[in-house]
């Protein structure tokens, strides 16, 4: 059984914003897929990157580690990293791991886009 159960879509929005739609599981095996998606946003010269977790099925602690390394990569490129679509459970996980202090969380895409473009 493959342990990679993640697909992503990258959408280029206006004003230098890109959205990464996450479908499936974010675990330690998802690194290449997630980083490929991030590299696509760089092809778009994104100033802000929004992670859409509406279709997230599962995330383990290795997945949180991946998000931390993604966060560092965006910070080094002076990009903002935002998120929306997190269930209450995963919002709690962000709180537990303090990711919510570095990644701004919004309830929906319109709010995230407004913040990213503001």
């Amino acid at each position: 059984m493959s342990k990679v159960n993640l697909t992503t879509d990258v959408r280029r929005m206006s004003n230098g914003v890109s959205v990464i739609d996450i479908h499936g599981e974010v675990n330690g095996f998802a690194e290449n897929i997630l980083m490929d998606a991030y590299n696509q946003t760089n092809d778009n010269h994104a100033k802000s990157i929004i992670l859409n977790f509406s279709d997230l099925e599962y995330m383990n602690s290795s997945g949180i580690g991946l998000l931390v390394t993604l966060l560092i990569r965006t910070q080094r490129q002076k990009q903002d990293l935002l998120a929306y679509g997190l269930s209450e459970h995963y919002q709690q996980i962000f709180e537990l791991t303090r990711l919510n202090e570095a990644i701004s969380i919004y309830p929906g895409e319109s709010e995230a886009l407004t913040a990213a473009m503001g």
Partner: protein
Amino acid sequence: MTNQESLSQKTEVKSTWAKPVDTLHVDGVPAEAINLNVEGRHLTGPIRGFGQMWQKTYRIHLNGAGVTPQQVISTWKENFPKYWPGDNRFYGSLTSISPGEVAVLNLEAPAGMRLSTGIMVIYADDESFSFMTPEGHMFAGMITFSADEGEGSTLTQIQVLIRASDPLYELGCRVGVVHKQEDAFWHGTLKNLAAEFGVDDGQVEQQNILVDPRMQWKEAGNIWHNAAIRSGLHAPVAWVRKLF
């Protein structure tokens, strides 16, 4: 999938993660333990650390052991303190590693000192479990223990994603002392675990990635909670208390 199965799966997912806590609380620590620098502390994680961020991965193949990843993790969770090398102590649950558990650690330090700090178990499933560190710990970060099917044998891994918590610990890292001590610690742990499964000649592979070379100067004040300093200051007090 029926509603019952869906509900069961959601419950299972939630039970793998600890709930957020404001501050840590420790229970049932034995009298011989030095219980400092844990009660009332906040969790930190790599977001809150001071020094360079490192991802270090330690791996060992359990060649010929004939155990599944689930069996390895089950044994590891039930006997976690047993595999720590040297005179380092882990005072946690008497049963098994489980999400939300807080453990007190008494670690070997230079000049015969004992460093007291702790961890919280933030995640545990059948194939992995993770700790997060509190204020004062040498490293602000996460440590993930896992097992997976490798090529012909089960591969056991420890991965740390860490920053030195404060400038003093970072200095120790830069001169190599702290990293060397940490590497030896996890190499010893993996070798002890492998020996449990009859693998006595296993070699630990290590990979280090410098994720972020920058320091977070805004976190320099973390030194206030430095567990090494606080443990050192507490030692004479403890000696005097023993006399009277």
